[in-house]
């Protein structure tokens, strides 16, 4: 029995009573949610969302100056402006943010570890309010608190999430048996569920769908193993089980299964892994909590509980690393040069481990499936922002204000000069689902069956089907979707063995975001298991990699060939019916400016006498409008002349400024969409 249970059973009972009797439940229940929207399409429509959002309920966001609430986040998703830090002493915000288009669905995912802590420390009626840690926390919230003071107090608390699992525990301020924080945390959780209920559009307009959720933030030794916990509806567990309650993922899943999925209450839940790139290669380690290799029970639990994964967000892409597993020149996209959460936050260059990336997981998953019967890493694809300023779906490269979290908070005045966030981080992406309607049941089911795709921000729409008998001219059929759906499986599905010796055929149909760059091409990435080895090959399917599209770095103006939509039918030329395989599509836009380049294109700076050491020492003394230090820094990718002669094979022999050339961001990016794979299952 977990440590906290003995002292908190009464709290759980109380919470179940309260949650179980909520207004929302007695009114709506969950039955009948499917089919209630005026716009219902049995062949499914695309809906855009974000499932990774932090507000003032997250300790890190809160201490970084985020004052906007979950209500504000919902308002932002609907298209309303919200204030963004830094705030003046009188409480007025110095910045505002607005999304360019409303979202269809979202799940707020505040760090549950400190739900109770924040409430206890902010509520004078709480026992624990005047505990030393709370006094320090409140001191750090004062307007005149120094960045060093705030950082010290934040780290003191947040370090608890980086403890080894056996040492994971609530802060001392939570009192005997953690009761203060457990009780307060339940209050907060109840409010989270209630806010999600109030924001969910239950009319037949179905404008906004909300899901209650939170983030389980386990990061033993700063290796990121975080997961977002997403409930289908207002039927939730009594506690938002976090790393302090259940310090192992399998404990979390067991608790969710027992108190939600198997509880017979209409509750359903899934967990979404993210930032496996920052796990030092441990996210997909074949090791259970007891140190033993996976068992068949474990892989079944993981497969059932984790249908999708976040391939991309603010803290970088987790698809693949350049040079790992296969030559894929597109693996450099937002590949941040850090291996864990701490090095990211402190900007210490540490090579990421390829075992923390999805390509590795997909290969390992097939290998484990061959021996255990279930693939524990059969992930569909999502993407998200991981915003810590309550700004879901705020992905515009040309309007990036920094997302905070592991990045820069910009809490203090005057704001630092130059970029509003660490240059290696980015605005993050969006999740899209193919669902019948914009309502909880339909969207949750779509995520469960992995009929999802992620984008790096733009609303690139892509549809993919796999089958055995698709005609080669399927792209010309106006009823392409109906035909493909009837004769095959959509993204996220599995193709079983085919009696004939045919090879699978895939059709991919994509359209650009009407407000973003045109499309350049579609690729299919195939991975397969060859004996005990896994392989990957990238195949072109439609469009033209050499279409001559360019972007002007000085103005960010795009030029070149214009494809609003692309379609391709592709048959695997190297298919072996005895080999497990997966296939996913990657859709690429024409090149466009990265956010760093957008900001430099709008700023005035002169790199003639640029001095790296001088910038490091003096940057904070420069006015906020001075972008010289950031734009002249080779890491921003705009000093191609300066870096041309730098040989990065021996970085230690280089000057500091030259070393910055060895870890440049891409000044020009190709925004993209990644579909969930379609798997091929050979005869057993």
């Amino acid at each position, binding site marked *: 029995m977990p440590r906290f249970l003995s002292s908190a059973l009464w709290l759980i009972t109380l919470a179940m009573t309260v949650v179980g009797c909520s*207004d929302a439940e007695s009114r709506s229940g969950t039955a009948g949610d499917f089919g209630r929207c005026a716009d219902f399409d049995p062949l499914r429509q695309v809906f855009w969302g974000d499932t990774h959002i932090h507000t003032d309920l997250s300790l890190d966001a809160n201490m970084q100056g985020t004052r906007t609430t979950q209500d504000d986040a919902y308002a932002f998703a609907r298209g309303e402006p919200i204030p963004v830090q830094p705030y003046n002493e009188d409480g007025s915000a110095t910045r505002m943010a607005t999304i360019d288009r409303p979202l269809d669905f979202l799940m707020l995912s505040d760090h549950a570890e400190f739900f109770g802590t924040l409430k206890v420390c902010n509520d*004078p009626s709480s026992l624990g309010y005047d505990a030393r840690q709370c006094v320090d926390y409140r001191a750090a919230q004062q307007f005149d608190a120094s960045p060093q003071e705030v950082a010290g107090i934040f780290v003191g608390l947040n370090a608890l999430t980086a403890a080894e699992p056996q040492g994971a525990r609530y802060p001392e301020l939570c009192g005997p048996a953690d009761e203060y924080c457990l009780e307060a945390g339940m209050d907060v959780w109840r409010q989270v569920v209630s806010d999600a209920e109030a924001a969910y559009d239950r*009319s037949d307009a179905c404008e906004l769908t909300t899901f209650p959720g939170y983030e389980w933030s386990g990061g033993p030794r700063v290796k990121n193993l975080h997961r977002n916990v997403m409930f289908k509806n207002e039927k939730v567990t009594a506690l938002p089980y976090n790393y302090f309650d259940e310090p192992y993922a399998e404990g979390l899943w067991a608790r969710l299964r027992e108190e939600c999925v198997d509880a017979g209450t209409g509750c359903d839940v899934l967990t979404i892994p993210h930032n496996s790139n920052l796990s030092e290669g441990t996210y997909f380690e074949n090791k259970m909590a007891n140190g033993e290799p996976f068992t068949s029970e474990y892989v079944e639990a993981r497969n059932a509980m984790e249908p999708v994964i976040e391939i991309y967000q603010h803290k970088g892409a987790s698809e693949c690393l350049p040079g790992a597993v296969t030559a894929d020149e597109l693996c450099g996209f937002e590949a941040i040069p850090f291996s864990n959460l701490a090095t990211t936050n402190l900007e210490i260059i540490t090579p990421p481990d390829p075992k923390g990336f999805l390509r590795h997981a997909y290969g390992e998953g097939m290998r484990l499936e061959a021996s255990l019967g279930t693939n524990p890493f059969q992930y569909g694809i999502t993407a998200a922002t991981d915003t810590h300023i309550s700004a879901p779906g705020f992905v515009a490269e040309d309007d990036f204000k920094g997302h905070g979290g592991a990045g820069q908070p910009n809490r203090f005045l005057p704001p630092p000069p130059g970029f509003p966030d660490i240059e290696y981080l980015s605005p993050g992406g969006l999740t899209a689902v193919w669902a019948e309607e914009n309502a909880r049941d339909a969207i949750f089911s779509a995520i469960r069956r992995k009929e999802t795709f992620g984008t790096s921000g733009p609303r690139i729409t892509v549809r993919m089907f796999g089958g055995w008998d698709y005609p080669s001219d399927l792209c010309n059929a106006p009823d392409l979707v109906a035909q493909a759906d009837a004769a095959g499986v959509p993204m996220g599905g599995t193709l079983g063995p085919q009696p004939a010796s045919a090879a699978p055929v895939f059709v991919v149909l994509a359209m650009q975001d009407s407000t973003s760059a045109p499309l350049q091409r579609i690729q299919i990435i195939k991975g397969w298991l060859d004996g005990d080895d896994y392989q990957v090959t990238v195949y072109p399917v439609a469009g033209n990699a050499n279409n001559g599209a360019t972007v002007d770095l000085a103005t960010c103006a795009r030029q070149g060939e214009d*494809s609003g939509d692309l379609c391709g039918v592709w048959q695997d030329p190297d298919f072996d019916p005895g080999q497990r395989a997966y296939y996913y599509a990657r859709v690429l836009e024409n090149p466009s400016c990265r956010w760093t380049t957008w900001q430099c294109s709008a700023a005035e700076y002169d790199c003639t006498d640029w001095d790296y050491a001088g910038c490091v020492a003096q940057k904070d003394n420069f006015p906020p409008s001075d972008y010289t230090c950031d734009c002249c820094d080779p890491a921003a990718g705009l000093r191609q002349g300066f870096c041309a002669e730098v040989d990065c094979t021996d970085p230690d022999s280089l000057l500091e400024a030259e070393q910055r050339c060895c870890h440049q961001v891409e000044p020009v990016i190709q925004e993209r969409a990644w579909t969930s794979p379609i798997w091929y299952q050979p005869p057993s």
Partner: protein
Amino acid sequence: MLRPLVHFFLIGGLLFGSKAVYERSRIEGPSITVRVAADATDADVEAAVRESILLNEARRYHWDRTDPIVYTHLIRNMRFIEPDTEDDDLALFQRAVGMNMQAHDPVVRARLLYRAREALAFVPEDRMPSSAELEEHRRTHGDRFEREGRVRFQHVFLSRSRHGAALAADAREMRERLAALGDSSPAGLGDPLPGLRPEQLATPSELQDTYGVELAGVVEEAVVGAWRGPISSVYGLHFVKVIDTEPAYVPPLDVIRTEVRADRLRAIRKKLRQERMASLREAYRIEIERAP
């Protein structure tokens, strides 16, 4: 479970007290002296006055003697001052009160203000919005709950990247085919595009987000029964025929009760805070003393 009960009694007390204070005020209201800085602005003075009133109310109901947080905090203070004491908690608390520690301690002050502010915004059962009140709120604040009007329309698309230089000619041909369709469905005509359906229900905003302003504008004009086009977008050319329109509407209460209730409660809390503060403000006699 306990907290709502505590709130109920304490709030009841505060409300009763406020009422009593208000009724007596014409004869003799509580008098307090509020000290402010010499250069305090009007806003600073008002804030200080309100805080003083709330603190005074909290003390009138003896929360500074009975509140469990105040109790434990004062004991902790005393044990800090007298680390070797062997007195029990009650004795230490009584000694702290004897020293009037509760009057000056910043944590006690914050605690009392917090409770008083909570009390001001507390919504008693009899002020919880009824269904009728929610319905009235929904009706009178329709702009907050209104859903955009929708258009049902048929849609045929010709892709620029597929038709290339022949796009304009193909569009002319398509227009003729559509004109000859009569009331038949256009299914089977045009090019596929993800998410595009031969017939669809959408709002103009959704169409603008997906296809751009030009197509949304044509659909919004809602000329029923005629094929319109070609309309240009970044994807190519479009033809649309509006089948019918649904005006903007406010959903019924049983559908959006949670949304309306949350909105109404926000307003009630705000009003209660203002009303109760105004009552207290009126009942009190305030003397302002500016520090030199």
